């Protein structure tokens, strides 16, 4: 500041940096207390000594990690979770693509109505939607009763197994996928399709050669999102799985709340984070290849 200016400017209490720090302080505090510290603590917890009764020992060791990583049950849990999440991601993509494409091509009020129909489920509690699936898939539910009315004596079991979990999660993750696809469809100018058609490509070929590659980034984003949400989802597998579907997330909850092995729960959480990190890397790599 120049001293020349002093007759007309009042001394500033805070410089821009000071003001910025003051404005950022509250969120920094929340972030530190509610995020950074708990996550660091979680990592620490995975090295705590676990005792048989579920109480925590005072010391730190590698037991939880060595047990978890050499245990076929945990390893199966990881591969299962990854496999099921991948399956759900693919199904979600298949189910969401037509909706997103149709939405992208619709206009005006109709588009708004459809958007509401996509967003409303997203904002409706997963508990509500899972309950809806119980109503559809249970033994006395919509599908079973419809099949019995059609003369099927023993309708297939759709709930309390992996089938139910996959169906429910696919639907629950669809809005995320649709929105991700839509954000990626920005590059899809309908004129490009018209250009391809006028150049002699069949509609199918146009879709395969023009539409699909252009929408690939949206698909990658949606895929990442759904995979991560699927592998960390817990309410739906818990309610639709009937205690027979074991995924990392349900296991974390059980270990934390029921079996009370906090170090193991923490270690499993770290494994989820590692899987998450790997998928993020793969996504970044895929995106670079597409672009």
């Amino acid at each position: 500041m120049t001293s020349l200016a002093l007759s007309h400017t009042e001394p500033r209490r805070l410089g821009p940096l000071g003001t910025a720090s003051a404005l950022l302080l509250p969120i920094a505090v929340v972030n530190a207390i509610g995020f950074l510290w708990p996550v660091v603590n979680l990592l620490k917890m995975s090295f705590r000594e676990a005792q048989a009764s579920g109480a925590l020992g005072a010391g730190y060791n590698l037991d939880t990690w060595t047990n978890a990583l050499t245990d076929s049950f945990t390893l199966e849990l990881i591969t299962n979770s990854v496999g099921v999440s991948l399956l759900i991601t693919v199904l979600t993509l298949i189910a969401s693509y037509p909706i997103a494409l149709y939405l992208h091509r619709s206009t005006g009020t109709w588009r708004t109505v459809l958007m509401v129909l996509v967003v409303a489920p997203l904002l409706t509690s997963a508990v509500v939607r899972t309950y809806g699936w119980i109503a559809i898939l249970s033994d006395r539910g919509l599908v079973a009763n419809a099949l019995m009315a059609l003369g099927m004596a023993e309708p297939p079991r759709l709930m309390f197994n992996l089938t139910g979990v996959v169906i429910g999660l696919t639907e629950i993750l669809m809005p995320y996928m649709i929105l991700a696809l839509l954000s990626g469809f920005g590059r899809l100018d309908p004129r490009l399709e018209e250009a391809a058609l006028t150049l002699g490509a069949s509609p199918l070929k146009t879709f395969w050669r023009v539409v699909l590659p252009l929408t690939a980034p949206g698909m990658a984003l949606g895929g990442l999102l759904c995979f991560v949400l699927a592998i960390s989802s817990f309410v739906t597998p818990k309610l639709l799985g009937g205690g027979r579907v074991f995924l990392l997330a349900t296991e974390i909850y059980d270990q934390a709340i029921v079996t009370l092995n906090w170090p193991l729960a923490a270690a499993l959480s770290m494994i989820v984070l590692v899987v998450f990190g790997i998928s993020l890397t793969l996504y970044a790599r895929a995106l670079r290849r597409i672009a």
Partner: protein
Amino acid sequence: MDERPVSPALKIAAGLMFLFLLAPLLVVLPISFSGDDFMAFPPSSWSVKWYGAIFANSVMMNAFWISLALAFVVTVLSLGIGLPAAYALVRLKPPGAEALANLFSAPLLLPTIVLGLALLLVFAPMGLIGSFQGLVAAHLIVTLPYAVRVLSTALANLPLTVEEAAGMLGARPLTVFFRVTLPMMRSGLVSTTALCFLVSFDEVVLSLFMTGPRLQTLPVAMYNHVDQQADPMAAAISVLLVVLTLAVVLVVDRTAGLTRTFVK
């Protein structure tokens, strides 16, 4: 944009997938009017008794009021903390603003089950489990990133010249903020409010870790209810929640534009 023909195949596929997407929400409506004591579809008789049952159920009603108060407090705090942060990040651009912005949105990337566990482990020794303060803190962790992101985008999209114009006309920075910047961010504020409110009101995983016998949120009470007895009352509550959500979505669409709020 001009009309472009949509192939019938796409129409049919999209229609079917929409049906699948909306099925669980559609099916709860008839069930909520079930006269049966257990959940079955189709119900064998009809009644509105389950709606009455909600209001007679003190656990649900308490949970509803707690969720409402919680969502309200969390929304107010999210705006109160998120707005200054967004302003600092977008307008004052301190060194490392981008890294800070990433740090502040990082909790969104963390799977909620992991975040829930992490919070449980630090909140439990502090006696915050089952406390309103604990719930507020937990919800803030997930609503704040939304708030900062939506508000930052809203701020960044504002034409700076309008604020400069106000300054040139003699308005002090604080006056500019309240008289010009804030009113121009209206749609961003509406979106943020709606988003924070709904995220907090619907949050179930973190809440499951944070609630206790004396303090349950509505989604947790519903989760426990569905987990223990999936009777038609859950359907009646679901219908009310879907109606609430739709109302919020419509308000947002009217004031802020749905696409702008939820896409990207």
